[in-house]
């Protein structure tokens, strides 16, 4: 029997109560590559790896001391040559003598299998924790998104409120701007009608016509570059200036020089806000039957006499505020019989379609000024379908009444 145990297909070990090796079988010695007499009397630590020594203290001893069997405990042995041998150990303390009997089975193959299992388990755990982490992050992201959405909704509300307020302000400003427009004139000497429409709430266009003396009229139309609020502000500052100058009866060239100086003063400190302005001014004397005019870079005004002959009041100088040191020259023409004048800004028709205006005037000589205005408005509406008009629109129509003979010429 003793011999059977010595060569049994498992390791056998007897330990004293404090872990001293009392007996060891040949099978285990062979595995550990030791001779019997070397190990007898040594502590079991001698054949354990360092981790196994700790594990032995933490689990093996308490179990034995609590009189419980050690079952299938996995530990690693260390051979004489420092090689690790994974084993399963079963142990029990004998009731009478307190020595501990241990059976050890090598588990190389099972160990590898368990290693694989552990690797797979760790992978699964990592995947699970990654998934949890990803879920957490998603939740955080979702929460953030919801907060952002709330913020956006709040902002949107504020925006909406701001937009409403701005619209009201703009509407008020539009009213103010339109209030500053002069009313139609209908006298013995002439009749004036006008049309005014901003592309947005506020316009960069402006006109004015003034009865200076019983027989003298000043008529101006201007277009500040661009449109919207900035252009409208400049327009309004020019309007207050030209109204004063015209009503005081200043000569056309002086009026233009003053407007030019005004723009120059406005923007001399700040190039970024620089704006220029095109304008036509007519000074009409219905007694003398003279028209004096200056066109500063503006689309030509149209004169049509009573027989339908037309003349363009073309540009006489660059736009106001465009170059330093501009001079403005007047031109004048006389008329005996009556005629019609059309002044307009470039938003009225596509610049390439100006022939539409000449033919409109030509084909409608017999109708009243009010009817002509309606036809022109209709033309603009028709044109808008093809020509995407995003500009301010403004025009003035003037009917001049004359004596029998029609006669006009440019001096």
């Amino acid at each position, binding site marked *: 029997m003793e011999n059977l145990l010595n060569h049994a297909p498992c390791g056998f070990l007897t330990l004293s*109560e*404090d*872990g001293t090796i009392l007996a060891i079988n040949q099978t285990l010695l062979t595995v550990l590559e030791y001779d019997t007499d070397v190990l007898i009397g040594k*502590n079991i*630590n001698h054949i354990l*790896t*360092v*981790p*196994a*020594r*700790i*594990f032995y*203290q*933490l*689990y093996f*001893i*308490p*179990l034995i*001391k*609590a009189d*419980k069997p050690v079952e*299938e*405990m*996995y*530990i*690693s042995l260390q051979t004489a040559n420092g090689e690790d041998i994974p084993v399963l150990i079963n142990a029990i303390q004998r009731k009478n003598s307190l020595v501990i009997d241990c059976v050890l089975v090598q588990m190389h193959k099972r*160990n590898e299998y*368990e290693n694989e*299992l*552990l690797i797979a388990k760790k992978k699964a755990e990592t995947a699970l924790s990654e998934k949890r982490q990803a879920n957490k992050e998603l939740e955080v992201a979702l929460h953030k998104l919801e907060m952002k959405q709330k913020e956006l909704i709040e902002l949107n509300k504020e925006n909406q409120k701001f937009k409403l307020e701005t619209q009201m302000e703009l509407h008020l400003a539009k009213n103010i701007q339109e209030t500053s427009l002069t009313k139609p004139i209908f006298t013995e000497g002439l009749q004036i009608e006008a049309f005014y429409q901003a592309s947005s709430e506020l316009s960069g266009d402006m006109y004015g016509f003034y009865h200076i003396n019983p027989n003298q009229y000043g008529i101006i139309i201007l277009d500040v570059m661009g449109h919207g609020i900035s252009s409208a502000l400049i327009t309004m500052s020019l309007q207050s200036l030209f109204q004063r100058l015209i009503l005081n009866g200043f000569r056309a060239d002086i009026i233009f020089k003053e407007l030019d100086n005004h723009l120059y003063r406005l923007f001399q400190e700040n190039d970024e806000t620089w704006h220029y302005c095109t304008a036509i001014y007519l000074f009409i004397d219905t007694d003398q039957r003279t028209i004096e005019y200056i066109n500063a870079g503006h689309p030509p005004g149209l004169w049509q006499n009573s027989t339908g002959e037309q003349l363009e009041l073309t540009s006489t100088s660059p736009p106001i505020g465009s170059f330093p040191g501009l001079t403005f020259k007047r031109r004048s023409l006389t008329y005996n019989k009556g005629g019609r004048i059309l002044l307009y800004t470039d938003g009225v028709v596509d610049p390439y379609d100006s022939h539409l205006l000449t033919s409109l005037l030509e084909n409608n000589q017999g109708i009243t000024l009010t009817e002509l205005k309606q036809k022109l408005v209709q033309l603009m509406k028709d044109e808008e379908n093809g020509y995407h008009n995003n500009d301010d629109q403004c025009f003035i129509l003037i009917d001049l009444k004359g004596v029998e003979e029609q006669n006009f010429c440019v001096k």
Partner: protein
Amino acid sequence: MDKSILLRNNVNVKGKGTTSLIFAPGLGCDQNVWNAVAKTFEEDFKVVLFDYVGSGNSNISAYDEERYSSLKGYSQDVLDICASLNIRDAIFVGHSVGSTIGMLASMEHPEYFSNLIMVGPSPCYMNVPPNYFGGFEREEILGLIDLMEKNYIGWANVFASTAMGNEERPELSKELEDRFCSTDPIIALQFAKATFFADTRGDLHKVTVPSLILQCAEDIIAPSAVGEYLHQHLPSSTYKQMKATGHCPHMSYPNETAQLIREYLNESIEDTVQIGDLR
């Protein structure tokens, strides 16, 4: 008395005395490791035994991975128990890392403790070259963790079912009794990591409660050099070399362990009397 804490930590109070004697287990097994020693004190002391959350018969569902990832979480268990039992000036007896846990608790609430008795303590199990030799290299600790992982294979199922709230099922009661040295795989590994990677050397000078270091012979987990280091750096510490060998004198040599604890307590009581006489 907060009953929920007492249930959570499976707190058992026995004995006829008034002074509390708290026994804290180390890593691995539950409060039963103290049975032999604790019994001898029941005549004169109020003996308090408990399990950390996650081990023994504690309430595993109270386990919090973050809290118990460092020794602070375990020391908070001790503080919670002291608060629930309204304990003042208790004698705290801790085995191995249990003594470090008690030391950390005493730094938070010194008024809870009159003495710390540290059985096989170590402030740091790892070697920190060039001046400190705790006994182990990092790879050796990782090897231990590997061993622990493989020894859980047979146990995992038991704890999976208890953790799922089947505690009231009678057929599981036997397994509950068998929890002595086994814990949920994740929990035990975390405790092992918190234990073996801890370094409390920097805290030692802050400890105010007087202590006894019981140093075993041939202890591979807490060698004599480590016990001596602790004694040098721990204020008001007493160092006692035991005849007991190994790391578990409270189980292997309960008589000597109990005897030395009793001697130290008698001496420290005499000390107190002497100081009282001087006034």
